[in-house]
């Protein structure tokens, strides 16, 4: 197997693995956070505004982990830095 197809194969498989494995944790975390926030809103409907705002901020921070994985897989597919070593 030549170098080009090796790099291509490694980066595509790596992108898939990064996205797949990397979104497990944020998915579980966001589910937990939304469940707790819904329970809290059901208990105290008057506090809905501040609860929702805090929920959004928290969700954004959890989500950023998944976004990191996504950006890394995008870099691996679209802007792979190792291509320049292979293709002169």
């Amino acid at each position, binding site marked *: 197997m030549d170098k080009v197809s090796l790099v291509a194969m490694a980066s595509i498989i790596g992108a898939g693995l990064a996205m797949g494995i990397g979104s497990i944790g944020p998915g579980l975390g966001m589910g937990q956070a939304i469940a707790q926030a819904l329970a809290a809103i059901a208990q105290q409907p008057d506090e809905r*505004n*501040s609860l929702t*705002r805090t929920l*959004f*901020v928290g969700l*954004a*921070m959890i*989500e*950023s982990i998944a*976004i*990191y994985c*996504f*950006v890394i897989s*995008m*870099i691996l597919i*679209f*802007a792979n830095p190792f291509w320049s070593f292979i293709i002169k």
Partner: protein
Amino acid sequence: MEIVQLNQISPDQVIIWSWRFITLNVTILYTWLVMAILVGGSILVTRNLSSDINVSRWQHFLEVLVSVVRGEISEMTKKGADNFIPLIGTLFLFICTSNVLAVVPGYVAPTSSMTTTAALATCVFIAVPYYGISRNGILHYIKEYFQPTFIFFPFHVMGELSRTLALTVRLFGNIMSHEKVIGILLAVTPFLFPVVMQILGLLIGVIQAYIFAILSMVYIASALSTEDEGHVDGQKEGVTA
């Protein structure tokens, strides 16, 4: 006819016009468009403001917008909103406009390029010490980096840098991923499905603008609230992610 091809990761790579070392790419062009819409619209609306009973529709619109932003900010800081509303309101309006316009055909959201979002996050990165120093003084601000002991200094610096990176990548990743998803869906299942995804994209765009504004407000508030503890409830911890 797509302006940004599917194999290009950012609209920076599409160059419309270049003369010697000056290049004009799609990001800059559409940033100018959004700026022109915001500035021109504001000038047109505020040219004849009135305070009697008959108020024009657009003045109502702007009043609602400003009062909502002001209410959100003053609810978060528990202090006046007048210091922050120029920065936070501008960030929100710019990001929201540039995301929502993405349903217009031929338009590429400037927030789907990492340069735009990095510039916006840099504004927040500079604004945090600015507001912190102007409220508490420079000595107090620097002392905050060495709390509780001096060992924590590198962690505070790392936190500042990593949250700027997180602001950048979050907005960029969300908007760019949505454009790519719509592009792929157009190739796979045309007509109905991309429309549904574009409706979802409107929601995501507004939510991302809201999150960007709220997070920058949280960061600024965490630099302010050193004097009187408890005013900003629990927002000093966990703002680094």
